């Protein structure tokens, strides 16, 4: 008995154990409940849908949805083709984002490329913007009447040049848009490691006259492997669950199929969600296998050395910087210019002033109309500055983003810390996986599951901030936990052990040692949920109506073809994020990007 008591006392004497116990239990419920809800939904008979038709029953349970999805004549179009498209999309998105973002991270942190500060700030813009806005920009640029039967996009209008269909719709543009969107993500994750990496090993190799390519492949790349794997994990899951980009660019994926099947094949749509989850679990398992093979990834120790920069040449540092300035212009500045311009066009997509050179064709009606006058071309809406829907959604979004960032950031950071401290413990691995699992589930499915969970005879949270915050927190804990875990794994135990010898309390150790050392990663753990929340659509699409938050309002206006409103919302979002990023920079000395490039 006494031994047990001592064991319990010892167990609870370690803060990391308490953290793991509390959050292990909490996350088990919050993660398993949506899974159970979706599995139940696949077996439930839904009135007015295929399962009722096939079973002849209006209620009860059946496995008919599984039978129909896997064996009916529609299996190819409802299951296999979307599945294949989804996998290709996720793989190509990972490739593009890691190559583009990872290489940029390398250039910023490990070379003497010029214009770093500017480029580092501008590079994250595509991640700030809702992902489908780049898809809309893509359409506005490349669509043509000759190829797609739509009105001409900007390039076709101005030059007469048309692009082939595969360029305008389908897998290629979807993967490029998503790849560009997630490249900043790879940049932040990989750049964080590059920045904090101990250069001793590379310097030792340089002293030993090891060729540069060998240093890169044998030392540098293995050191950043955890960051690459984490980026793959996060990007793969996100790309799989992305709804708006394939929706706008005409690619049938599991997510778009989920939405289109949901009305008539409700149970079968939920099976698609489970399939996406199974893939998520498989990726997580692969990650576990790779983690087991890793010996030690400590990169920050008490005796860290100076980071060396690779010299890319006198002209090279300017040329490479200039190339990236041009590239980021098209991925970051150009869309914003188009958004701003769109809000002054007389009709959505009507660039006629460019050919007529008559600037009188531009209008401020989309901003300044203060009454509801459909005759004025506003489709029953007030101007942006007077539009109660937009501003209500704006304040709602801020509330949601703050709440999610604060809660998910705190929980995730603590989990990351506790898991790093108990890295050999199975319970820690379990908590880590449970925290991460929601991220691998498709956002739409998580949203649907929470809708089902909180829509019953006892509680109905649809269209409330409660349900959005719950879903957002559960979904975004992985951002913080991964960022925190990555950074905590780099911290040698000897630092905290030294503080323990000095009788420093846990809070003091955290505040004075752990957090300051890994400030940029931890700030990322708060910033990423905040930013993601601001423009998240797939997760919240099914949980609230348009006008409740900005992303659903933006999507509503985009779908309606009212691009002036959606562009204005984009501008509002970008400005908001930049303001908060700058505030974070001024107040804490850390912002999303300058931890890496500043």
């Amino acid at each position, binding site marked *: 008995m006494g031994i047990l008591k001592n064991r319990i006392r010892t167990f609870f004497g370690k803060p990391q154990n308490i953290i793991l116990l509390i959050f292990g239990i909490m996350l088990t419920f919050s993660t*398993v409940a949506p*899974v159970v809800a979706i599995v139940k939904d*696949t*077996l439930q008979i839904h*009135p*007015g849908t295929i399962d*009722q*038709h*096939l079973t*002849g029953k*209006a209620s009860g349970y059946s*496995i008919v*949805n*599984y039978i*129909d999805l896997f*064996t*009916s*004549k*529609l299996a190819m*179009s409802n299951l296999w083709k979307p599945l294949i498209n989804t996998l290709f999309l996720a793989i190509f998105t990972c490739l593009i984002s890691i190559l583009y973002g990872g290489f940029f991270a390398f250039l910023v942190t490990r070379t003497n490329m010029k214009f770093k500060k500017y480029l580092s700030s501008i590079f994250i813009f595509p991640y700030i913007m809702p992902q489908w806005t780049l898809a809309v920009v893509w359409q506005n640029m490349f669509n043509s009447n000759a190829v*797609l*039967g739509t*009105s*001409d996009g900007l390039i076709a209008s101005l030059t007469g040049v048309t692009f082939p269909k595969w360029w305008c719709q389908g897998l290629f543009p979807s993967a490029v848009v998503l790849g560009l969107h997630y490249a900043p993500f790879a940049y932040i994750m990989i750049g964080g490691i590059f920045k904090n990496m101990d250069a001793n090993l590379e310097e030792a190799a340089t002293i030993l006259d090891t060729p540069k390519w060998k240093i890169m492949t044998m030392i540098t790349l293995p050191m950043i492997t955890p960051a690459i794997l984490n980026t793959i994990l996060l990007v793969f899951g996100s790309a799989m669950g992305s709804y708006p980009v394939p929706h706008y660019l*005409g690619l*049938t994926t599991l997510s778009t199929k989920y939405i289109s*099947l949901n*009305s*008539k094949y409700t149970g079968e749509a939920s099976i698609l969600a*489970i*399939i996406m989850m*199974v893939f998520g*679990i498989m990726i997580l398992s692969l990650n576990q296998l790779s983690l087991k093979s890793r010996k030690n990834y400590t990169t920050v120790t008490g005796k860290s050395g100076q980071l060396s920069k690779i010299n890319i040449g006198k002209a090279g540092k300017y040329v490479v910087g200039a190339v990236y300035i041009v590239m980021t212009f098209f991925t970051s500045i150009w869309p914003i210019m188009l958004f701003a311009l769109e809000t002054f066009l*007389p*009709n959505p*997509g*009507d660039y*006629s*002033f460019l*050919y007529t050179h008559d600037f009188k064709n531009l209008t401020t009606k989309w901003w300044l109309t203060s009454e*509801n006058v*459909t005759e004025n*071309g*506003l489709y*029953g809406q007030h101007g942006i500055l007077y539009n109660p829907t937009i501003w209500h959604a704006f304040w709602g979004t801020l509330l949601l983003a703050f709440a999610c960032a604060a809660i998910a950031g705190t929980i995730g950071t603590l989990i990351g810390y506790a898991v790093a401290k108990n890295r050999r413990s199975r319970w820690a691995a*379990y908590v880590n*996986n449970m925290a991460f*699992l929601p991220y691998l589930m498709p956002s739409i499915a998580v949203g649907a599951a929470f*809708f089902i969970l909180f*829509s*019953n*005879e006892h509680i*109905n949270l649809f*269209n409330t901030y409660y349900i959005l915050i719950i879903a957002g927190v559960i979904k975004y804990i992985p951002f913080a936990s991964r960022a925190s875990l990555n950074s905590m794994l780099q911290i040698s135990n000897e630092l905290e052990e030294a503080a323990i010898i000095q009788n420093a309390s846990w809070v003091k150790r955290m505040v004075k040692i752990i957090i300051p050392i890994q400030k940029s990663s931890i700030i990322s753990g708060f910033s990423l949920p905040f930013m993601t929340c601001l423009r998240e659509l797939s997760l919240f*699409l*099914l949980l609230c109506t348009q*006008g409740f938050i900005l992303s659903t309002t933006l999507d509503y206006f*985009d*779908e309606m*073809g009212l691009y002036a409103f959606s562009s204005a919302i984009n501008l509002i979002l970008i400005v908001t994020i930049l303001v908060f990023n700058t505030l974070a920079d001024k107040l804490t000395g850390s912002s999303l990007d300058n931890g890496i490039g500043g």
Partner: protein
Amino acid sequence: MKKRGLALAVVSAMLVATLGACGSGTTKTTGDSTAAQSQDSGSKQAANTEKSEVDNIIAQAQGMSLEELAKKAIEESNGKTFYGVGNSSRGKTALPLFISYLKTIDPNYNMEFEWQQPKNNKIFEQLSADSLKPSGTFAMTLIQDGNQIQTKMVDTNILKTFIPKDWAEANGVSADSYKGFLPLQTLNKVFMFNNTGDAKYTNCWDFVYEGSHPLFMDIDSELVGKNFLYMLTKEEYADKLKEAYDKLDATKKAYFDPVIAGEESDAKDLGLSENGKYALAWIKLWVENYTEETDDGPICNTLVDTSAKDQSGLLVYSKLRSVEESANVSVNNITVAAYQDDYTGIGGYGYNHYLFLTKNSPLPWTACAFIAYITCTEDGFSAWGKDMGGYSSNPKVMEATEAKYQHQKGGYNEAGEDQFPAKDDRGYDWWTKDGELVLEDPQYCADVSFTVGNWIEMLSKASDKN
């Protein structure tokens, strides 16, 4: 370990089900047209339940005038919050008008309100979830898609129809004997084309002729579009398609003949009428060739642009209301197909916005009064009536609305010249007779949703080729 257990549980569930599939040789699946007949019993049973409090209130309310209902509403909802949900955002505009009306009876009356407009078919899930509670959140709904309303909302007893006395009288029916849903208005989606090129669309078959890729909302996201296709297979509309086909020239007939012949056996299998094969051929060509858009808004934006030469589309007529003239964009760049003197065949599709109380409506009297107000008064309908292309189901309100807003001269300028003929809305009567509008029949749509519906889903949409 637990993670593995969880993974195992999910995979096991799928495996068990898949194995079940292997063992259930006789189970019907999608595409098996014989499976269509089995759905009656369960759903119909649900409707035969005992009368609820809301049923009783509806029964009383159907005998009352608007003013009597208004007094009941004032009694019930003063100081409370009214929640409505609908496919149309205009409920939000109509509610303040309703409150103002109630204030004319009792100046001290006040009511807060919230109007929600869910997307992506979510309204059905939202109403289903709300119906589980003893007292619901939503007092009423304004909802479209007769097919899903029938199968998911009415057969399951979630929504209740209330027929206002004044509305019934205006339509020459009695509230008790009236069968069907209460429509607020009929909206029309009409065939239009960009006239800046040489293309001619003088027959509804021209929209599915070789090389034509009309713009249309995705039939999987805008389900009223799918209902339109279902309705074409109804005998009267299949006959209209046959009549239009007969007026085509030999070249065009030669193009369509193999497709029509190819659908003959499917039409028989699906139990369609003699001319059903014409409907199936038209639907097949439409589905396989239409250019998918997210909404009617982008379709309108495209069609009015000069660069969309010869392009066509089927879209909500009222979208033309907000086009602003510029060097590239003009309402005069489009022609409403059915307005051409030599046009033959169907001119578009008419579908309804229906009004219902929820079965657990927290404010049933107020919901009844609001429904009566917007269906029986010109002011109440003005939230919708000020725009072209929407026609009140109440003949008196329709007449008053037309007198006030003059939609038939919607394209006239202040000098009295017909500046934009496409905006001269010829009205409900013209559209349903001369315009040969295909009108939604919820019961028919529900009946064929798993026969014709599954057949449509087997077709390869143009967008599926990506």
